[in-house]
């Protein structure tokens, strides 16, 4: 398994500004009614579960009366309420309750934010790996008001996950993998303007040993930035013959978007539980 360290992380930017709006600004540390609330820097995360040295030892039960020993500020309460609403809204707009299937016989393995699609094609094993972290390009600036003529209640454009993905091709009986690092175009998704970019492009190509777990920088890596276009077209045809074509790329975007949304909702739920700490 080759790590995705070669994939260039994409800046999340203002993509989260849409439905995932910032929490309303409230004083962070509005103390509870009792004067025992601790300064922010001395938070105890899980009350009663560890022996805390010195200053970090809780002074007593939390001022809100829950008895957990954690810090529950007014800000935390508002945060939890906000998260409740946010989770409800995100679940309402969730396009896929379970992950969409890829056509073409790909088997899916998911490990947290990393997904692997595997297929055997006549004596070859093809693996496509991607990570949904930092995979949503900034689609628009959420802080701008509606454009001229746009209704205020119009739906905001959907956030789409377009992760870089790595294709590995290994022929049976060989310990050599042909590895192709592929990207989706960097332009903003959802624009109606003419777009002349391929649906996806190959950025780098390299041979790696199947036995090595780490990417070897000492192996020659072909960059397609200044590559002969004829060779590039042959590489794209090579991928298409192994099921990595435009249809595959479109379906990968659907899968990645669904997985990212799922992970986001799980994160919000974990965050709510953490802040609540009950």
């Amino acid at each position, binding site marked *: 398994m080759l790590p995705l360290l070669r994939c260039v992380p994409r800046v999340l930017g203002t993509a989260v500004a849409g439905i995932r709006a910032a929490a309303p600004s409230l004083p962070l540390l509005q103390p509870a009614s009792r004067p025992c609330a601790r300064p922010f820097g001395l938070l105890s995360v899980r009350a009663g579960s560890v022996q805390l040295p010195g200053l970090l030892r809780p002074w007593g039960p939390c001022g809100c009366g829950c008895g957990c020993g954690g810090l529950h500020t007014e800000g935390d309460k508002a945060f939890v309420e906000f998260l409740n609403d946010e989770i409800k809204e995100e679940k309402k707009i969730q396009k896929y309750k379970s992950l969409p299937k890829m056509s073409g016989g790909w088997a899916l393995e998911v490990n947290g934010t990393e997904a692997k699609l595997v297929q055997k094609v006549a004596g070859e094993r093809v693996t496509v790996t991607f990570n949904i972290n930092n995979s949503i390009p900034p689609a628009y600036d959420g802080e701008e008001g509606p454009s001229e003529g746009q209704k205020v209640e119009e739906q905001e454009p959907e956030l789409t996950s377009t992760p870089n993905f790595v294709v590995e091709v290994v022929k049976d009986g060989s310990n050599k993998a042909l590895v192709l690092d592929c990207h989706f175009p960097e332009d903003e998704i959802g624009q109606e303007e*003419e*777009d*002349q*970019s*391929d*649906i996806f492009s190959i950025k780098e190509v390299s041979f790696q040993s199947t036995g090595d777990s780490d990417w070897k920088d000492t192996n020659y890596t072909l960059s397609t930035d200044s590559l002969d*276009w*004829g060779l590039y*077209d*042959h590489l*794209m*045809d090579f991928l*298409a013959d192994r099921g990595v*074509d*435009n*249809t595959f790329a*479109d379906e990968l975007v659907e899968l990645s978007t669904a997985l990212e949304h799922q992970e986001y909702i799980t994160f919000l739920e974990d965050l709510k539980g953490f802040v609540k700490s009950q």
Partner: protein
Amino acid sequence: MSLVVRNLQRAVPLRRARLREKVQAVRRALGVQRFDLGVVCVDNRKIQQINRIYRDKNTPTDVLSFPFYESLKAGDIPQPEFPDDYNLGDIFLGVEYIFQHCKENEDYYDILTVTVTHGLCHLLGFTHSTEAEWQKMYQKEKQVLEELSRHTGTRLQPLSRDLF
């Protein structure tokens, strides 16, 4: 110079290397290998959108050409002063439309070749708005396709054959 092929669609499986080979042959036959050219393959939805925006025709079509030199006299080869001007423009191929209209006994890539020849002639100033203009264009396409046929053994007919 560069021939850039782009495939923006998934309606029709496309062999990029094979299409490139065909387009290169047409460029050689027209004597414009030293000029940059873009060939963009799109589906019906996209070509219809472009047709609507630029020609006010809300319908898919087989080819749309966007010349770099907009006032070229038919048959003239541009004589640029600067390296950046060695450019003919872009051809949008409605590959889905072409595929749907391809007859059973016709080779899809032969039809693409004929369509690219027509598109490239447009980039070189040929038009078919009048009969006289059409005659010039038809003759040029025929000349190019006959040269290609000599190498491949196929008998390709100009796209503009039935336009007048």
